[in-house]
């Protein structure tokens, strides 16, 4: 079999091995490629940075372990940012395993804060985990009226009336920011479509830092879904968006806390380069094979 024909029909298992090596080698021998945060990531960071101390941020953990590599680093970096700015955090989940993702994120954040001798956030005062509630958009609508009506107990079974943080806020209308870490539906589309009409505060004007009576809607999503949400960003329905592991790496860079996302950028870049080379190779050998067949025919 000629070289061109052999390369055109290359066994896909060889491609799998090469892609695998393209991921493993940069993980073991980091290159340190530069990471320049994108504008949407910077907008997300600036929004949290603009919140005054004591502001209450709602984190909606709408993902499960299948998308942890992309969304967990975002959760950890954003929670770290919030706690270092002394913001208060309410965690909810519209996906069943969201509360566990929230707990795992907090364990990692506490480790980071402890390593810097930063006072650890206290459960009940600085953050609460209200757990999972089914029905997606209806939960968002219900929270606009009352948190207690939707989440009478937190994820550990404690009545929310016994949590000091929940004395400061009774409904979603008093939130300063919502961060939705979303792997699908319910998630960002539900928050964008429902929140403003349900009575949550309106977004601040583009470029404005005055957030009195306003609410940021920020999102983190898988790379698969990110292109579909950029229209929300461009129309100011969302004020920030992190897309995939790259978005998480951008945020880790902005808060200066390198984690698994930044570590994953070298293998990501190398793997993409390998894929591009394979695509070029495949096209070259495709056209060479066609030319050979034409010559044989004539």
């Amino acid at each position, binding site marked *: 079999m000629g070289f061109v024909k052999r390369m055109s029909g290359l066994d896909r*298992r060889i491609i*799998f091995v090469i*892609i*695998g090596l393209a*991921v*493993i080698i940069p*993980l*073991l021998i980091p290159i340190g490629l530069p990471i320049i945060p994108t504008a949407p990531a910077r907008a997300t960071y600036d929004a949290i940075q603009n919140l005054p101390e004591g502001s209450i941020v709602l984190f909606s953990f709408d993902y499960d372990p*299948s*998308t*942890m*590599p*992309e969304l967990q680093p975002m959760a950890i970096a954003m929670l770290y940012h919030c706690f270092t700015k002394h913001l208060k955090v309410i965690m909810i989940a519209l996906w*069943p395993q969201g509360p566990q993702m929230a707990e795992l994120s907090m364990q990692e954040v506490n480790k980071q804060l402890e390593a810097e001798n930063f006072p650890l956030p206290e459960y009940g005062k600085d953050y609460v985990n209200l*757990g*999972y509630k*089914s029905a997606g*958009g*209806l939960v968002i609508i219900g929270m606009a009226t009352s948190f207690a009506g939707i989440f009478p*107990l937190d994820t550990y079974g404690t009545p929310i009336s016994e949590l000091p943080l929940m004395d400061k806020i009774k409904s979603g209308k008093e939130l300063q920011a919502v961060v939705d870490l979303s792997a699908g539906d319910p998630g960002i*589309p539900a928050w*964008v*479509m*429902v929140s*403003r*009409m349900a009575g949550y505060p309106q977004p601040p004007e583009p470029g404005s830092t005055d957030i009195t009576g306003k609410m940021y809607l920020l999102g983190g999503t*898988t*790379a*698969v879904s*990110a*292109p*579909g949400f950029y*229209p*929300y960003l*461009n*129309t100011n*329905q969302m004020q920030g968006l992190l*897309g*995939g*592991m*790259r978005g998480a790496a951008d945020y880790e860079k902005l808060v200066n806390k390198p984690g*698994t996302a930044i*570590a*994953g950028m070298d*293998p*990501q870049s190398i*793997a*993409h380069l390998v*894929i591009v080379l394979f695509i070029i190779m495949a096209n070259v050998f495709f056209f060479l094979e066609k030319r050979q067949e034409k010559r044989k025919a004539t």
Partner: protein
Amino acid sequence: MELTNISFWDFFGVWVAALLTLFIFSFLYKDNPFYKLAEYLFVGISAGYYVGYYYYNVLIPNFWIPFWQQGQYEYIIAVILGTTILFRLSRKSGWVSRFGFAFVIGCGAGINFITYLQSNAMAQIYGTITPLVALVKGENGGILLDWKNTIYNLVMIIGVTSGLVYFYFSKPHKGLLGVTARLGIWFLMVSFGASFGYTIMARISLLIGRMQFLIFDWIKMTWDVIGGKISVGF
């Protein structure tokens, strides 16, 4: 992960997760019993886990407690409607499920009609109303042409218009309409390509996540246990 001692069950759990990961990856060579074992285990455990999870986290707090402990008897209506959906499984009585589905679809359509129209149609139309020529105030107070935003706005308006023209099928795509539709196809293909590129990035990210687990959680932890840096205890 920096640990000096871990419990046996954590250590065992990491090994089970690593082996199952490798079993799934073995499919890349060819289908085999190890892959099948991992696949069936995943399906079975997911189903069992979610039955238990939904019983304790949905049925009990959303129906059992309000109905039996708080006297909110109106919740029985929701349970009856939900139960009718299960009749879908019966060939003879499947028609009963129409009541439950009608309620779900009707409510969903009613809520989403306005919200979807607002966020995905009206807001997007509003977002495309941008100046064809973007101007900006210069340092000396004069008005300057903002090239970047002008080109961006022009590309966006041309892309949106031509893309919409492509989906206009009431007239044959000939002449000016045909040319515009053809341009629309190019914009659509470029956007699909960008979306596909993001999809590839997502899949590579998941592979990177698994490799990070295998290398830094499984192999490194096992090496440290063998080397005595980490002790495993009950």
